[in-house]
C-alpha cells in the first residue's frame, strides 16, 4: 500500500514546478563575472548562483562538468515565425499591421534558433516601408501556441526603415520613369521622401492624438460625446508618441540616421534602437545623446551601395562611445550562431570577452526593455540558460541544452534521436501512402 502511494506521488511530482540544479559549469553571468559552480532554478527563475549551493531535495541535477553556462542569447532583429509575408509592402506607412496577428509557432526556424542558443527574439516587420508594421518579442518556447510564445510584459515595437528599401519597394527598377508602361509607383522614391512620409504620418498622429485626448478629457468630465474613429494606423503612432511602443529603425547611412533622430526630437518621441546602423560609428555621439541603442551586424558589409561605408569595427567603436550595442542576425541561419558573431567583436576592435557576450545577451535585453527579466545569470531572473560544450565564443562550441523559464526546450541528445524517429515516421507514411495509391492508370475522374 505504502509503495503504491509512493508511486502515485512520484507520478504527480513533475507536475509541480521543477527544481533544477545545473552543476559544475563554468558560469558566464555576463553581469556578475565568470565563476565555476552551480545554478539553482526554482519556479522557472534563477534561485541561486554560486560556487557552492544547497541542492534542494528532489531537484533534477544537470551535470555540466567541463561545460559552459551562459544566459540565453537574445536576437534583437529577426523575421522568423511569421506567417504570410513579413512585409505589408503595398503602402509606405503600414503601422496598422501587427506581427502578433501572424505568429507561426510551428516555424522550424524557432527550433533551430533554439538549437543555436537563442531564447528570445525581437520579431520585426520587414523594411519595405518608411513606417512599417507593429512588432513583437517572442521567447522560443518551441511547442507552445502563438500566445505562449509571446514574451509577456515586453513592450511591443514598431519597425521604421530608411534608405534604399523603403524608397525602392513598390517602385520600378531603375527609378521612376524607367518603365514605359504606367506603373503603380509608390511614394517615396527618394531619401527626402522617406523623411517626408515619416513627418506627415506623425503630423496625422498628433492630430489624431489631440482628438482622442480631447474626447478622453470630455468623457472624464462625464460628457457623452461620440468617440472619434479608431484608426489602427494612427493608433500605433499615438502609442509611439506616448512612449508605449518602441521604435526599431532600419538604417545604414549617417545622414539618414541624423535625419531620423532630428525628426524624432521634433515630434517628441524616442528611437529605441537603430537597426543595422552600419555607419553608426560616424555619428556615435549623436546616437548616444538621443539615447538610442544600436543593433548591428558583426562583419557584413558592401552588399549594397548604402552598405559600402560599413566597417566591422562599428560595434566596437559605438560601444567605446558608450552606446548600448547588440549584434543581430536579421536572418534565420545567422541566428543559429550569434555566439560566433559576438566573438567577431573581439577580433575587430578588441572588445573584451565579457563585453562581446553582452552584445548578444544583456545589451539586446536592455534595448528591448527586458533586462530586468533576462540577459544575464542573476538571482531572480528568468531561467533562460544555454549550456555549451566548449567556450561559447569558440567556433567549435555546440549547444547542449537550452532552458527557457526553467524548462528544457532543447537537448542535443534528444534532438538527435527525435530526428531519427521523425525520419522513420516519415518513411513509414511515404510507404503507406504509396501502397494505398491506386495504380497510376490513365486518369479517370469525372469532371463535376
Amino acid at each position, binding site marked *: 500500500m505504502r509503495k503504491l502511494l509512493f508511486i502515485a506521488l512520484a507520478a504527480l511530482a513533475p507536475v509541480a514546478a521543477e527544481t533544477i540544479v545545473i552543476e559544475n559549469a563554468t558560469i558566464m553571468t555576463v553581469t556578475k563575472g565568470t565563476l565555476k559552480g552551480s545554478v539553482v532554478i526554482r519556479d522557472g527563475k534563477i534561485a541561486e548562483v554560486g560556487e557552492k549551493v544547497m541542492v534542494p531535495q528532489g531537484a533534477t541535477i544537470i551535470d555540466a562538468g567541463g561545460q559552459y553556462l551562459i544566459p540565453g542569447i537574445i536576437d534583437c532583429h529577426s523575421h522568423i515565425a511569421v506567417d504570410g509575408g513579413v512585409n505589408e509592402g503595398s503602402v509606405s506607412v503600414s503601422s496598422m499591421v*501587427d506581427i502578433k496577428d501572424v505568429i507561426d509557432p510551428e516555424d522550424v526556424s524557432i527550433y533551430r534558433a533554439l538549437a543555436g542558443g537563442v531564447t528570445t527574439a525581437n520579431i520585426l516587420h520587414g523594411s519595405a516601408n518608411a513606417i512599417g508594421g507593429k512588432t513583437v518579442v517572442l521567447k522560443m518556447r518551441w511547442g507552445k501556441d502563438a500566445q505562449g510564445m509571446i514574451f509577456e510584459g515586453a513592450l511591443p515595437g514598431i519597425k521604421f526603415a530608411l534608405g534604399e528599401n523603403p524608397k525602392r519597394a513598390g517602385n520600378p527598377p531603375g527609378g521612376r520613369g524607367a518603365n514605359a508602361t504606367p506603373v503603380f509607383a509608390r511614394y517615396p522614391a527618394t531619401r527626402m521622401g522617406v523623411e517626408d512620409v515619416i513627418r506627415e504620418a506623425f503630423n496625422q498622429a498628433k492630430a489624431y492624438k489631440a482628438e482622442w485626448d480631447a474626447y478622453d478629457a470630455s468623457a472624464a468630465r462625464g460628457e457623452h460625446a461620440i468617440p472619434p474613429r479608431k484608426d489602427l494606423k494612427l493608433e500605433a503612432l499615438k502609442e509611439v508618441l506616448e512612449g508605449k511602443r518602441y521604435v526599431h529603425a532600419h538604417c545604414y547611412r549617417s545622414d539618414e540616421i541624423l535625419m531620423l533622430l532630428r525628426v524624432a526630437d521634433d515630434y517628441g518621441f524616442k528611437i529605441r534602437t537603430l537597426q543595422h546602423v552600419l555607419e553608426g560609428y560616424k555619428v556615435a555621439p549623436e546616437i548616444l545623446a538621443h539615447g538610442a541603442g544600436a543593433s548591428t551586424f558583426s562583419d557584413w558589409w558592401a552588399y549594397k551601395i548604402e552598405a559600402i561605408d560599413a566597417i566591422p569595427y562599428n560595434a566596437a567603436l559605438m560601444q567605446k562611445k558608450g552606446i548600448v550595442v547588440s549584434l543581430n542576425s536579421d536572418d534565420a541561419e545567422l541566428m543559429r550562431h550569434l555566439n560566433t558573431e559576438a566573438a567577431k567583436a573581439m577580433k575587430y576592435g578588441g572588445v573584451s570577452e565579457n563585453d562581446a557576450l553582452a552584445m548578444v545577451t544583456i545589451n539586446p535585453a536592455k534595448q528591448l526593455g527586458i533586462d530586468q527579466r533576462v540577459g544575464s545569470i542573476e538571482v531572480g531572473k528568468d531561467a533562460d540558460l544555454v549550456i555549451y560544450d566548449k567556450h561559447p565564443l569558440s567556433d567549435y562550441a555546440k549547444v547542449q541544452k537550452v532552458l527557457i523559464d526553467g524548462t528544457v526546450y532543447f537537448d542535443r541528445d534528444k534532438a538527435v534521436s527525435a530526428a531519427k524517429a521523425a525520419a522513420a515516421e516519415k518513411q513509414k507514411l511515404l510507404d503507406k501512402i504509396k501502397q494505398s495509391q491506386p495504380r497510376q492508370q490513365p486518369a479517370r475522374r469525372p469532371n463535376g
Partner: protein
Amino acid sequence: MAESPPVTAIRNARIVTVGGPVIAKGTVVIHSGLIEAVGENVAIPAGAWVIDGEGMTVYPGLIDALSTVGIPGAAPAATAGRGGGRGQTATPATTTTAAATQPAAPRAMGPEDRPQTTSWLLAADEISPSDHRIETVRSGGITTTATYPTRGIFAGQGSLLDLITAEKAGEMVVVPSLGQYISVTRAAGFGGFGSGFPGALMGYIAYIRQIYLDADHYKLVKDAYAKDPRGLERPQYDRALEGVLESKRILLPANRVIEMDRMLRLAADLKQPVILYGMREAYRPEAAPLLKKFARPVLVSLKWAEAPRDPDPEADQTLRSLSNIDQGPAAPAALQKAGVPFAFYTDGIDAPRDLVRAVKKAIDAGLAREDALRAFTLSPAEIYGVADRLGSIEKGKIANLVLTKGDIFDSNTHIETVFVDGKPYKPVAEAPPGGRGQTTEEPGEIR
C-alpha cells in the same frame, strides 16, 4: 418531372429521420412541399401519389454547408488546400456575375479604400436558377446549399437555397442572409509590392480588424443621428459597413491548427459569432480541445489532402503534409468524439460518386455512419439556426428527402428520387467514366 402533385406518400420504406429513431418500415406524407406526416402507421390521404418504398430508404436531403452552387462561373469556395496558409497555392476565383459587371477597382492604399470588399452582396441576389451545377449536386442527394459569394476579402453574404428547378431565383431562397464569407487568401501569394493593400496576411487581418472598428463607429454615429439629427454632422453612407453590420455571423478560413487558434482569437476580438471553414488539420490532437474551448462550430471540407500524382521524387514532402494525407479524413471522427459541432461542405466536389467516396473516407477513418449523415443534415441546419425547418424528417419541416436503394454513403447505392420542397427529381445520369480525363486543381496545370 418536378411537377409536384399536391400530396405524395412514400410507404413501406425504411425512414432514417436523423432527428429521431430509424423507422424500419413506415410512411412519409408530403403535402404542399412540407412533411405532413411520418411514422409506422400513417394513413395515406385519398388521391395521394403513392410511391412504394419497399426495399428503399428515405433520408433527409443533404445540406452543403458552404457552396457556390447557383452562382455560375464562381470558383468553388476556398478549399482546405487554399485556406490561406503559408505555402499553399491559391486559385484565383473567377468573377461572380456581380463582380464581373463592376469596373476594375483602383489600387487600394489602405483600409479606407475598402479593398476586395463586396460585403453588401447577397448570394440570393446573385443566383441563377439555370446553373447546371444545381442538377449535378442534387443528383447526389444535396437538396440545400449554403451558397456564398467567395470573391474578395469580405466577399458577401451567403444564402440558404433549396435546389429546386425554379423560374425565379427567389423561389429557391430559404434564408436570404446567413453571414459574411471572409477569406484571407491572396491569389498571387503574399507579400507582393506592386498590387494594392493588403499584400501580406497581417495586412488582411489588420483590414478585417479596421472594418469592424469602423462598423462599430459607423453604427454609433448613425444611431446618434437617427435619435436627434439637430446640430449633428450628417453621417456618410458606407455600403461596405452596411454589409458588415447586416451579417449576423462570419465565416473565417482555418486549416492549420495555428490558423484555427489565430482565427478564433480574431473573431473573439471582433466579438463576432464565427464559423471556421477548412479544417485540414482538425485530426491533430491539439485541434479538438482548442475548438471546444471556443465553443464554435466548424465546417469540414470534404476535399481531403491527397498524395500528389506522379510526384517529383526529388521533391521533399514534410512530415506534416504526409500526416495530412494519411490522417486528414480522421478529422470528423475526432471532432465528433470531442463534441465539437461540425458540418461537411463539399468544397467543389460536385459529382455524386466523388462525394460518396469522400464521405466514405471519413467513415473508414472512424466516423459512424449516422454521424456522417448528421454532419450533412441536422448539424448544418443547427449551425445555421434552421433546424426548425430543415435537417431531419419531422412533421412540419420542409420536404427535402432522398429516396435510395442502399445506404446513402455506399458507392453502389442508387438514388431513386430526390425531393426538394416536396418536388420530386430523378437524378441525372453521370458522365461515363474515362471520358473527360482528370480535372486539374490549378488552372494551367497539365497532368
